[in-house]
């Protein structure tokens, strides 16, 4: 196809034109998304004023690249799990997956949901325009669905735009372990919509260890009903450019949201963690701890906003962002925001930026611990605050291993 010769936004639009009539779901919605994407473009790739939401991240490198939709799958190790859904290059692979109750393919049962903003967010517009597959997972009321793995394998030279819809019924429970891996240069642009009904608990652990040439651009929308809990943790280790954008709405009274994360970067990696927690109902609780560990010439970005709507009295919101700069060329940009329209609230945020404490380092070394080991101990300790809320043993184990591997790679 000649379409593939086009690069950047034009390339994506050409692919949409080529797929017209063959894409599942609401074609009007897709056309609107294509219009929006045409107007918005790839953030930073075109000249002109930067959108505030993309103040610190540019997708300019994508401007000169083009991506196909298929290729030979990478050799990645699959988790040995009873419930496993595998997507390669964005397409569901039944041969690699297990049977998971409540699962349907987006290709068979396309659902775009109602929480996303394809008109405002270029990456969501892109996904809405091109999504061909994804996981539609529905957990019935009061069911404990245990742990489900959702694995994304990136294929060199492709762009994947999976669309996921996760619904937890009243009182349901689920641990969703999402893994992102791959080989070569590719784009992962997933959009997930999550509904947590009254009293339900979703533990969402995301581990991104993409190829360091890959673009990982994920957007998550979560709505939490009365007494529900959305407990998430994101670990970003891979990727050339990573953007994790999470929009959480605490819709029901007493809803709880945890949006924790850690980014470990080196080389010229860039990772942007952007989140909005909206307290729309009274007595909600939100907690967020995001840690950046930055080596090489890497750049970490954290943008976090807590919004408290009028009437959301009794809100308790807390957010902490810390960055550890391990090299003289690393950079951190942080923008923690509070937007408060109710008076009976307790909201606070904090941010710190610094290097390893030389006095702590000296203390450890004076006790006979070698320098590199002492540093490892301190970095591990630094990350503990963010990792500690992950209580699921399987998830915690995987995250700890990934962190350990990253650290070994630094030595």
């Amino acid at each position, binding site marked *: 196809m000649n379409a593939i010769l086009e690069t950047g936004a034009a390339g994506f639009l050409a692919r949409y034109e080529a797929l017209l009539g063959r894409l599942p779901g609401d074609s009007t919605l897709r056309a609107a998304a294509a219009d929006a994407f045409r107007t918005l473009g790839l953030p930073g790739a075109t000249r002109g004023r930067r959108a505030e939401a993309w103040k610190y991240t540019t997708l300019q490198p994508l401007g000169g690249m083009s991506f196909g939709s298929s290729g030979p799958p990478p050799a990645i190790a699959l988790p040995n799990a009873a419930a496993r859904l595998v997507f390669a290059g964005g397409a569901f692979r039944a041969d690699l997956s297990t049977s998971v109750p409540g699962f349907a393919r987006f290709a068979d049962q396309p659902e775009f949901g109602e929480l996303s903003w394809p008109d405002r967010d270029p990456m969501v517009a892109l996904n809405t325009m091109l999504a061909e597959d994804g996981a539609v997972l529905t957990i019935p009321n009061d069911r404990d669905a245990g742990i489900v793995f959702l694995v994304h394998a990136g294929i060199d030279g492709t762009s994947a735009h999976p669309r996921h819809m996760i619904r937890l019924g009243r009182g349901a429970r689920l641990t969703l372990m999402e893994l992102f891996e791959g080989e070569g240069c590719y784009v992962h642009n997933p959009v997930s919509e999550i509904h947590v009904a009254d009293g339900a608990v979703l533990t969402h652990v995301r581990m991104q260890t993409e190829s360091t040439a890959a673009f990982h651009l994920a957007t998550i929308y979560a709505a939490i009903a009365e007494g529900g809990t959305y407990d998430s943790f994101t670990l970003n280790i891979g990727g050339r450019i990573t953007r994790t954008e999470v929009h959480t709405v605490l819709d029901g009274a007493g809803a709880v949201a945890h949006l924790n994360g850690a980014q470990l970067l080196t080389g010229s990696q860039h990772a942007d963690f952007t989140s909005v927690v909206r307290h729309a109902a009274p007595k909600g609780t939100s907690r967020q701890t995001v840690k950046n560990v930055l080596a090489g010439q890497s750049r970490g970005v954290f943008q976090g906003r807590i919004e408290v709507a009028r009437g959301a009295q009794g809100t308790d919101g807390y957010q902490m962002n810390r960055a550890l700069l391990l090299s003289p060329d690393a950079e951190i940009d942080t923008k923690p*925001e509070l937007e408060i329209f109710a008076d009976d609230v307790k909201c606070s945020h904090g*941010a710190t930026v610094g290097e390893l404490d030389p006095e702590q380092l000296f203390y450890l070394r004076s006790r006979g611990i070698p320098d590199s080991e002492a540093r490892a101990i301190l970095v591990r300790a630094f990350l503990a605050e963010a990792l500690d809320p992950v209580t699921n043993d399987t998830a915690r184990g995987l995250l700890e291993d990934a962190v350990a591997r990253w650290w070994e790679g630094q030595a």
Partner: protein
Amino acid sequence: MPADSETLDTVRSVTQSGYKWGFETDIEMDVAPKGLSADTIRLISERKQEPSWMLEWRLKAYQAWLAMEEPHWARVEHARIDYQDIHYYAAPKKKPGPKSLDEVDPELLRTYEKLGIPLKERAILAGVEGADQDGYVEGSGQIAVDAVFDSVSVATTFRATLSKVGVIFCPISEAIREYPDLVRQYIGSVVPVADNFFAALNSAVFTDGSFVFIPKGVRCPMELSTYFRMNARNTGQFERTLIIAEAGAHVSYLEGCTAPQRDENQLHAAVVELVAMDDATIKYSTVQNWYPGDAEGRGGIYNFVTKRGACLGARSKISWTQVETGSAITWKYPSCVLLGEDSVGEFYSVAVTNNRQQADTGTKMIHIGKGSRSTIIAKGISAGRSNNTYRGLVKVLPSAAGARNFTQCDSLLIGQECGAHTVPYIESRNRSAKIEHEATTSKIAEDQLFYCRQRGLSEEDAVNLIVNGFCKDVLKELPMEFAVEAQKLLAVSLEGSVG
């Protein structure tokens, strides 16, 4: 809660009756026709008897301004401003720059008296032993005042005492004529003419303001103060202040401002530039009390101000303290560019909004010099249906090894219809820099109010006490006389907003 609803009723029953500075002075004025053009700028420059370089500078700024757009990134909303519907020059008739206070229009002296700013030197201290020729007594806590009325400075006190130690304190219009080399060297050096829309506008049309020069090694013997009064209708106030502290110099400068109570909005777009050399210290304090508009949001000043200090020298220090209670809209970010090694920037702010007021204020600390340090303490109090935003930037460049910043932003909400927002930007490109930021939002706790009332305090007194406690870390940075004034102002601003 009973206390809440009850006290909120009190809020509703009390309108903005508290603004005591809203009177108008009836005085004959020399006013330029409405509208902005190269001709308006030429007229201003001519009225000020400026040298040609100044006019050219202004016209360059005007050209830059024409190509710029009004900024809309702040969290403030206002009707479109018609820049052609404003008088850009208004001055009391009577020749500017009187030689002594005796030559100042008595109506003006009465106005300042009424505002609590006596333009007196000798009068109070006549006959006091040790008094100088202009009545200055060492250690007496006197303050030298430059009084700016609409577009011109009407009087500057204690100039004789100051000039003895080489301190220049005069209207900037006079400085442009008398000290052109100094002005030319520094004006626009900290805030370039095209820095932003309002700074460009100011550079084109500024009319007066204060000029301060503290020579090497001199500690200014008294507090310097400028008092701005906007009086004329449909007039914009565009003052320009330039303070230069040479190596080892110290100065504490205060500014205050008020305006009559009117139904229409008035524009105030000032530019303040500070320059501190090695070991110099500039302390700049503001009590901003422009007319805030009425309870329904009619009238009030649009306060769009650019204030920036350059810590050029090693160990130089610039400290901004502001108490912002007035204005319908406040848009200002007093900043420090910390170029010098071990230079220090400070920003202490209290911003109070009530009724329909909107404030979007904060600071920028740009760390360039090695070991530069900055502290930001911002306290926002929102009441009524107001919106109060802290917006700030801490930026550490690769050169700023060992830079330090500490930021504390606290918001207090009074009532359920206001908003409090915090938008800090932190950008660090040096690993040895250490940055700490904390922000909290809270309301006055019912149990705090009850505790105070149990001890016999009225609800309003209890709120004042708690609010003043909330602001203490900032208020203690103000010079004594201002601190007392500021405390009273907080009480007046929050009058009836108890909750």
